[in-house]
């Protein structure tokens, strides 16, 4: 039989919850004030840390000498983290001698230990932070550990490991791409791309493999790499990618061809134009616009007149303008029998004043 709840029991239940809520409120309030104090102190710590960095940079080795008082302060874990954060930020900000001085501070105050400890943590953001700090401090001993973290299940950890390892080893650090299964986000690609400053002699073999990787993001990254370093030997490999099933890959391939342009490029692009998806067609027309090759003129005119897609017509007209065909276009626009749509497209491309 169901127990019928009485109003008295309800009141008791509500009062119990109310007491809990009030206790929680007091707890949250106390914690808020505590946090506020921490944050307030944190601001002071940031200033102290920045001051320390500035002293080190300005005074050189004198400024970077061990400060016992400061060392005592560093025993406070929160302060240690703040100082570490300031050091990492400063490392990014500066270069040359100043950067070396910042690096020196890492060593003087043995910040390495804290970073190492983080690698042993369970929380992914702590591990990622540890990797970043070790990379910034250029602790090469950490490379094996970081490499082992390339296969970490957490995205944040393996991405940071990828970034760190490329930071340490440059292009060689990219060997994880040989086996990479998960997609490489655009964000990560741009970070990695920035970290690769030069190419070793034996880059070709790896990159050729990457260009035929089943991982679409690896191909795109490689194409970006080719563009960055203007790697002409890959021209034909890139041409082969024009027929790739992925539209994104083919668009990137066209963009890369534009960067590697030779005398045949325009013809090749015109030749494949009809078989390409819409996005690739637009990219081809943009490439033709950049190349300003007179050979493409009839093709562009044809697209302007006969291609049914407005965006293609506009891109073609803009390319013709880049080729210096203003008068041709203006004549068309002034001819009465020309369809209104084409006239408008031309006016749009010419950005004609109205």
């Amino acid at each position, binding site marked *: 039989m169901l127990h019928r709840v009485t*109003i008295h029991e*309800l*009141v008791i239940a*509500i*009062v119990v*919850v*109310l007491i809990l*809520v*009030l206790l*929680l*409120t007091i707890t*949250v*309030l106390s*914690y*808020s*004030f505590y*946090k*506020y104090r921490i*944050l*307030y102190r944190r*601001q002071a710590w940031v200033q102290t840390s920045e001051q320390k960095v500035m002293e080190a940079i300005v005074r050189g080795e004198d400024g970077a000498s061990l400060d016992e008082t400061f060392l005592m302060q560093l025993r406070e874990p929160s302060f240690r983290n703040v100082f570490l*954060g300031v050091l*990492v*930020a400063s490392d*990014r900000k500066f270069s040359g001698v100043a950067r070396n001085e910042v690096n020196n501070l890492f060593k003087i105050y043995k910040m390495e230990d804290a970073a190492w400890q983080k690698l042993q943590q369970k*929380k992914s*953001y*702590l591990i*990622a*932070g540890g990797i*970043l700090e070790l990379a910034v401090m250029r602790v090469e001993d950490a490379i094996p550990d970081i490499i082992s973290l390339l296969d970490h299940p957490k995205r*944040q950890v393996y991405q940071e490991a990828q970034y760190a390892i490329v930071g340490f080893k440059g292009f060689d650090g990219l060997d994880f791409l040989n086996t990479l299964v*998960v*997609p*490489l*986000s*655009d*964000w*990560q*690609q*741009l*970070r990695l*791309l*920035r970290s690769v400053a030069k190419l070793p002699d034996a880059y070709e073999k790896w990159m050729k493999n990457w260009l035929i990787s089943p991982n679409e*993001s690896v191909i795109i990254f490689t194409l*970006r790499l080719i563009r960055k370093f203007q790697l002409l030997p890959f021209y034909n490999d890139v041409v082969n990618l024009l027929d790739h099933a992925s539209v994104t890959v083919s668009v990137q391939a066209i963009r890369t061809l534009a960067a590697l342009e030779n005398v045949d490029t325009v013809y090749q692009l015109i030749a494949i134009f009809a078989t390409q998806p819409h996005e690739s067609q637009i990219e081809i027309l943009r490439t033709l616009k950049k190349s300003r090759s007179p050979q493409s003129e009839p093709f562009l005119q044809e697209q302007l007149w006969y291609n049914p897609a*407005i*965006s293609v017509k*506009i891109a073609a007209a803009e390319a013709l303008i880049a080729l210096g065909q203003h008068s041709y276009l203006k004549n068309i626009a002034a001819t009465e029998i020309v369809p209104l749509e084409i006239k*408008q*497209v031309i*006016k*749009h491309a*010419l*950005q*004609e*004043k*109205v």
Partner: protein
Amino acid sequence: MIEFAHIVYEIVIWLFLLYSAAIFLIYIWVGLYAYGAVSRYKHDNTFTDYNFIATNTDAPTLSLIAPAFNEGMTIIDNVRSLLSIYYHNLEIIIVNDGSRDDSMQKLIEAYNLESISFFVQGNIKTKQIRGVYKSKNPAFKKLIVVDKENGGKADALNVGVNISSGDYIVCIDVDCILEQDAILKLAKPFLEQTDKQVIACGGVIRLANNCKIENGKVVEVNLPKSWLGRMQALEYIRAFVLGRMAWSRASGLILISGAFGAFDKQIVLACGGYDTTTVGEDMELVVRMRRYMEERGRPYEVVNIPDPLCWTEVPESKEVLKKQRNRWMRGTIETLWKHRKLMFNPRYGRLGLISVPYWFFFEFLGPLVEFAGYFIFLLFLFFGIINWPFFFALFALVISSGILYSIYAILVDLVSHQVYSKKQDLSKLIATAILEPFYFHPIVVGAGVRGVVDYFRKKHGWGEMTRQGFQQAAIEEPFTKRLGRQLAFALRNFGVIALVFLILYMISVGVEWWWYGHRFTHLAAVNTGGQLLLDNLYFAFQALLGGGIIYLVLQFISRWWANTVLVVSFSFIVVMHYILFLYFAESRNLLGADLFYYNIAEMKQILDTSGMLSFTNIALLVVLLVACYLPFWIFSKRSLNTVYVGLGMLVLGIVTSFLPLDIFFSSTKNDLFVQNAGRSKWRYFFDSNLTIYIEEHSGMFTGWLDNEVDSTNPNDGFPFLRKEDTKDILGGYFKNTDTVPNLVIIIVEGLGHAYSSPLGYVGNFTPFIDSLAKQSLHWENNLSSSGRTFAVLPTLTGSLPFGPHGFLEQDSLPPHFNLFNVLKKNGFSTGFFYGGDASFDQMSKFINYSGVDKLIDQNAFSPPYKKLPEQGGESWGYEDQAVFNKFIELQGLQQSPYFHVLLTLSTHNPFLINNEAYYDKLFDQRVASLSLAADNRKWALENKKQLVSVLNLDDALRQFFAAYQKRADFGNTLFLITGDHAMPEIPLQSKMDRYHVPLIIYSPLLKEPHTFLNTVSHFDIAPSLLAYYRENFGLYTPSHVTWVGRGLAEGISEKSNGIALMQSKNQLSDFVYRNYHLSDGKLYKLDKRLNGDLISDVSARELLLHRFETFKHKNKFFHTKKKLLPDSVYRGYFEGRKP
């Protein structure tokens, strides 16, 4: 009714409690989940370097779209601020939405703009573009300004989408101030997408009020100066840092603020852009985009990031704030309505199963529920039914929970992104959190409710435009066309009201059936729900037909009046239906026109004593009135797009008027209560009143009425007059005595055969009466003349006809004979003893007319006599024990004979008795000792309250007889005990059960007991008693009488004329003759225990119909003539002497 009110009260309280608990749990979840989301974001991005994508050519292209309307004062600075945003692949599109100020001119001048040809590639339909402008200055090459005709924010944004060339669009309010890295942070989620496509991304919006702004940048953050502003600052923290972060993490986010959000352009275009018909275009777009992705099975995400990216001014005046919240609420409703298909639709995953239902139940219904709570609180307060400890505990919990949530939000904001970093900011925010529930929250709730009302009453632009169009057209159109159009318009409007009525009425039917199921367990086994539904549906359609015709005619005169009449009538019908079915559930009686035959004082007494006029019930009625009227009021301004709904309702009304309901259900059920439970209470009420109206205005309906009955007067204008020839059946059973015996008639309120006889279908709950019956003359098959008390005195003491609404309801009583005046004429002293108010049901009029010596009613009682317990501050009067004791006290020993009538009261609704615990126990013992069959036991337990009161009466009678036995006159007294009718509150198995009451004549003078099996009625008692006195003691009785009954020897046998039975003061639909019972035109054959079987004996039916009609005619005739017998006969008797 009391129980119903109590249950409704409990349901209301529990609904609110459960709703509050649900909100409480959701907020706990939001709080915890958001904390996780915020922490994760913070940890993930502690060292994120955003700057490297700012100049990266591989970064995606973004188009920032800012619609502007009359922003001339600030637009130059605003655009400058936007141009300073640090992102390479960015275009900035300012859409001037037909500003009436000098915005365009200022822009052209400030940024050296020139109009250019522009081919708009996007395909979203928008208002016309007047021109597209670009700057001649290469420094502003990112800037595009579009000048267009005014079409609203959504239309302006659509123009921006059409023009944009970026991969993603960022929509902002032009007066917003963006953080320098806002675009970078917003772009990151799009750049990070891998397996799931990010289709939209929003950031935290903060308040710019009171912040120091220089060169379009916030250089010093301050809390707003006003409390209203601070409360909004707090609200924004709660909404963005907690709510949206939690929903974003749970993949359930459906709102990216219109003030700042980024979208995947391809998806926006594929979805058709912003909806220009809603005021909540931001939410609607996100829902549509998510719906688009769900329908194509594409994995996607809608992301919110906790970084404060955008600063905006919020209203610091209450009026503007109210308008804003009103608009937000309307936007929410529009979106929810447009995408109603998603609701609980598993095809749409979390969107359909969680997000949309959450928005419906908590964002849309939240303010309404809260507002309803305030309203109910005020009602409860007014009626004084608030349990204050409960209220204060709950109130404190609700307020403190709200405060806790706000403080928690401040904490999460503090640990994640320290926007308000000054020392005093934290304390100000906490103070704001404490004050907010008392000041800001009610404003927001009020505005939300107003938004709901405005939405349903169509208080937005196009509604007014429609009306204007109609009037303009009306002037020019020919009459017939105008007539057609006006009719069509009226039908569209009627369609809405009709739908609302149908829904509300059928809800009330649902409640009715639920209540029966709850109240009467045996109804659960009998499936009459279908019949109840259909009968009510029939009635509803017929009401719609009637209402519709009146509406269509009336609206030609005044649309306002037509609306008002229809809305008030339909609200009344719905509210009245609750009253009617509750009345039925409480009294087991169908309420008909008898309602109108009680005067106000009587009505008040009935309501008071039944506890109906309690605060709870009145509160309930008020809530019901409001709840029924509000939907009508809200929707009556709307009209449908089609006339077919309204037309369909009318057609269904016509169909149901001609298609008999009987074809769906056979009426073979014997259980009258079950039959009545399945009937439409409104139809009965309506038919009953209509019949009475027609009868009372017969002149108007002469042509329609059946006048076949012979109207000739059989007896010179006195149809009931006949020579007295009643046989003495009683004399033989009594000992001879020289002294004329006294006569005491005890009429027991509501004493039915079903529970006062071992043969009754409930069981014998009157052990004393039963034991007395075994020593008495006992008629097993005795019928009362009516279903209520109103007829018992005239029938039992005078065998008198009813007149139109009961003999006593006549303005003046026509001269007649009855036991009182005849016995008094023979030297009896007479009296009437009643514990209640004798003027009820006009009894005192009859007593006074009869010249009764003693009229003892409640005014004659005083302590130590006990009143029946009060309900709602009222009591029917004094308990039965008091009446019996008073009688013993007042009736001393005397030489001359006496005749008294005692009418009891305790067994009347609400069946409250003193010493209830004792009789409760007695009841349990009785149930245990009776060894009842399962069915009887069920009946007994279901009607315990009633039966406990019966046991009390029986015990009072036992004590009465015990006391009487000690008196010297006991041995020379005749006691007649009977019931006035059976209790309708105990379910009746057949219609006859209402009238089936015991009849016992006990006296120490009896030679031997005898049980009679012939069927007799109260009409037979007075003739037989007088015959007994006349034949055995030579009493002088009238030679000509107007008795309806033929005496106990004949009863309703063939020699009688049959008797009519009046169920209530307006309902004369039963006639009994021989072993036939004609009821509502249907013929039943009665067995020896008065159980009726429906038969189709045409000749018997004709016979009873004829006799019934004859009776009715005679009944009407005497009433019209206001005479039952010639004056000469009457005067002759009273003025004459015994021959």
